[in-house]
């Protein structure tokens, strides 16, 4: 099973990197990383947990909404729910059969 990799750099912002697996049509073993700033540190886990087990065909906007809800009590600097969702969609697209 290949790990899928997606990146997105927000203009004027920071890089967000997503590594994940798609198993039975769902996201798993999601890792978010990058040179962004988050507070508190635990917010990275909140964002990652929000993505786990989501359907791989979930579109950009619902993904961004999930992430925004997960980060409601966090401060994000240089990265946004929409940016993370973009990196997730890029990772999934990179692993699509006809990609």
């Amino acid at each position, binding site marked *: 099973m290949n790990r899928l990799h997606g*990146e*997105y*750099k927000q*203009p*004027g*912002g*920071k*890089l967000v*990197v997503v*590594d994940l697996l798609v198993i039975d049509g769902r996201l798993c073993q999601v*890792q*978010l*990383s*990058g*040179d*962004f*700033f*988050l*507070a508190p*540190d635990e917010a*990275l886990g909140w964002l990652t947990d929000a993505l786990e087990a989501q359907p791989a065909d979930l579109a950009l906007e619902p993904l961004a909404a999930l992430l925004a809800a997960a980060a409601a009590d966090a*401060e994000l*600097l*240089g990265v946004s729910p929409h940016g993370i969702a973009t990196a997730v969609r890029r990772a999934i697209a990179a692993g699509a059969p006809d990609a």
Partner: protein
Amino acid sequence: MHDAERWRQWPWQVIHDAPRPPLLQMALDEALLAAVAAGRRPALLRLWEWSAPAVVIGRFQSLRNEVDAAAAARHGITVVRRITGGGAMFIEPGNTITYSLIAPDRLVRGMSAGESYAFLDAWALAALAALGVAAWYQPINDITSSAGKIGGAAQTRRAGAVLHHVTMAYDIDAARMLEVLRIGREKLSDKGTASAARRVDPLRRQTGLTRGQVMAQLAASFVGTTDATPTTLEPADLAAAEALVASKFATPEWLATLP
């Protein structure tokens, strides 16, 4: 409150520290942040000296995405993870200028994160200007001049205190840097240059001064802003940091928290 008044809300100390190894540097930031947060230490500026080369990755970076571990090992470069976000840095002792500001976060009360970065380094940019380098903040956390990037900053906060640390390139071995850091294409997408090495333009070339002269100008500018008193680290600071090296920074769980 005027900027000048913000800086003079309390007494400051300035520490031009002895050379320390990379893991201890990471731990000292955390230990001193805790000491200032608990009121055990006054606000301080610590000017670092590095005793060994390092790659320092950000709190939220993936170890393997950022670092070629084999190349780092081959060159005897320690890889460490710091407690602040931001990007990977390649450190060589004689080439690098690093400092940490640690203070009650009232210092930046009411500011956005972006405003606080520029405010906390205004004295440093003034020092560079005095050396003939017109540098400015490129949001969020880059310090740059028309000739190229000079350095970057990162912040974190704990229990009412703020840590703001900065690394600037005095000089750079760009070939070595590109051997050990993996700098991806997406990261360079909005930088307007194809060459990662050319993104950085070090202070040595821009000032023609020694590293010591640049450090001295930084210290003088900070003392001018704050009336800081020179001091040194206490044995208790070093003991707390050594304990954090053993319990946290030297562990694979911390370094590879994001493998």
